[in-house]
């Protein structure tokens, strides 16, 4: 650490500042910064403000009772955090989920990916001073929430993907509404490109800011949009196909700049693929039951499983250990935000103070998910 030897944090030149937890640009999170004038010399993230002990709570609830509280950490993306849990428990129980259930899982997961990315792009626009993007983004996000509400019955916490399949079947009118929403959103995304992604002001605020090279992305173990923006092609849907993804055609968008703009733009490309997947899945939707019959307190055979899926922010994984009782012996959640948080101190170095929110939010970091 040459920086530390050059600038001691105790010297008079360096000012130590705390950003958060009460700060419009920080959320439920704090970064300690050492500033030299307008430049950040060093930074130290301080997470844990929302640590709620999800993993310990998982040990004294049974496999079905675990569903509602496990989706709370990442409420924007609530189906995607349940997806690996459900696939893991299915694998432990050796149960084969019906085809329609698999397709509905994929549809809900992709709808949630769009909901999560819309929130991300909207807030990123807000931090860059682009007020149109937050107004449009938050408004359009609500139409996807409407669609998810028609399918699952709740606004953000769906508890839709459960062990053994999905909770209920998709109503007929929701299929039509889903196809209509896809068509409308395709046109809408072209407008985002015009008004936001091609905007010179946005380029000035985010080009060459917080650049993460491909080597560093590998070294820090970045996943999801952060890794893909740095030219690292990682996508669990392609690398280790699960559920109905092998039947569906889509691509993994990759960019090479690795700056804040690329990280935002990858989210848009992700949404384009998600719309493609939803349209295909809605058209191909097989008939049959949507879930297996499970008792209220299913007994899971003793064993150990590691399951992973691609959430909106990156790779979401569960390590479940069962000792044959109705409750898991150990439930470890590996979340993408915690993986991407390690990149933050690397990026927040020799940057202007004004660029901090753009870099911080560009990592698509959600503290509640990271703290669990």
């Amino acid at each position, binding site marked *: 650490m040459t920086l530390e030897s050059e600038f001691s944090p105790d010297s008079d030149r360096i000012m130590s500042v705390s950003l958060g*937890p*009460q*700060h*419009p640009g920080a*959320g*439920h999170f704090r970064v300690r910064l050492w500033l030299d004038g307008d430049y950040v010399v060093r930074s130290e993230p301080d997470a*844990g*403000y*929302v*640590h*709620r*002990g999800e993993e*310990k*709570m998982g040990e*004294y609830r049974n496999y079905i009772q675990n569903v*509602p*509280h496990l989706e*709370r*950490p990442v*409420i*924007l993306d609530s189906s995607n955090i349940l997806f690996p849990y459900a696939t893991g428990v299915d694998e432990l129980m050796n149960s084969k989920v019906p085809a329609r259930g698999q397709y509905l899982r994929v549809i809900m997961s992709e709808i949630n990916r769009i909901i999560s990315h819309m*929130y991300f792009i*909207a*807030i990123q626009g807000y931090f860059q001073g682009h007020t149109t993007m*937050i*107004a*449009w*983004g*938050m*408004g359009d*996000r*609500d139409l996807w*929430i409407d669609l998810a509400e028609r399918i699952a019955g709740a*606004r*953000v*916490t769906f508890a839709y993907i459960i062990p053994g399949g999905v909770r209920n079947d998709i109503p007929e009118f929701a299929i039509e509404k889903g196809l209509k929403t896809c068509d409308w959103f395709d046109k809408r995304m072209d407008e985002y490109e015009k008004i936001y992604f091609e905007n010179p002001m946005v380029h000035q605020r985010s080009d060459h800011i917080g650049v993460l090279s491909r080597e560093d992305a590998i070294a820090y173990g970045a996943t999801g949009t952060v890794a893909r923006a740095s030219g690292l092609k990682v996508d669990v849907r392609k690398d280790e196909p699960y559920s109905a993804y092998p039947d569906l055609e889509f691509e993994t968008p990759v960019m090479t700049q690795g700056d804040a703009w690329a990280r935002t733009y990858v989210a848009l490309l992700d949404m384009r693929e998600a719309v493609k997947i939803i349209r295909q899945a809605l058209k191909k939707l097989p008939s049959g039951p949507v879930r297996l019959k499970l008792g209220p307190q299913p007994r899971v055979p003793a064993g150990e499983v590691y399951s992973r899926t691609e959430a909106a922010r990156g790779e979401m994984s569960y390590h479940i250990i069962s000792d044959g009782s109705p409750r898991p012996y150990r439930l470890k959640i590996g979340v993408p935000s915690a993986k991407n948080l390690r990149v933050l101190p690397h990026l927040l170095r020799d940057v202007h103070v004004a660029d901090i929110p753009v870099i911080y939010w560009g990592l698509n970091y959600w503290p*509640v998910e990271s703290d669990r």
Partner: protein
Amino acid sequence: MVVAQQQKTGAFQVLVGKIDDVLQYAIGDPMRYLANWGRLYSLWPVHLETACCSVEVGAAAGARFDMERFGTLEAFGSLRACDLIIVMGTVTRKLAPRLKLVYDQMAEPKWVIAMGACSITGGLYFDSYNVLRGIDDIIPVDVYVPGCPPRAEAFLQGLVLLQEKIRKAPSLSGR
């Protein structure tokens, strides 16, 4: 003579009391009404997100629900100029001292909305080792908005309830 003086001051006090009443009706009540009317349409919240209900506050600030038509912005910089804390969900042991600190640093008058089941009773996390069972032990709450998370409409209803409370506040200080 002492008695006469007492009578005199008594009469004076009665007179002053009458004037006080008259002044209260003529100036005090309109002043109180005006001050509280001014406060209730410009409730500016501190941006202290405590947990996941912040997503629904974000949705309420969006184009569909548009929190700003009630005079409330989503994020505002300085807490010295704020008069509302929306406690968005779970308060953990690490965040609790910070929440109290933020509340103490705000200028009077200030109000608190407890949003979500977690900030009311601990909600889904009632048996977690790191979560407070409601924020009443730390700061006084004006409006409770139940739900996990509450819908954006429910949050806006809580905001309107708080405005009603401020409109009917009995004193000039807004409490």
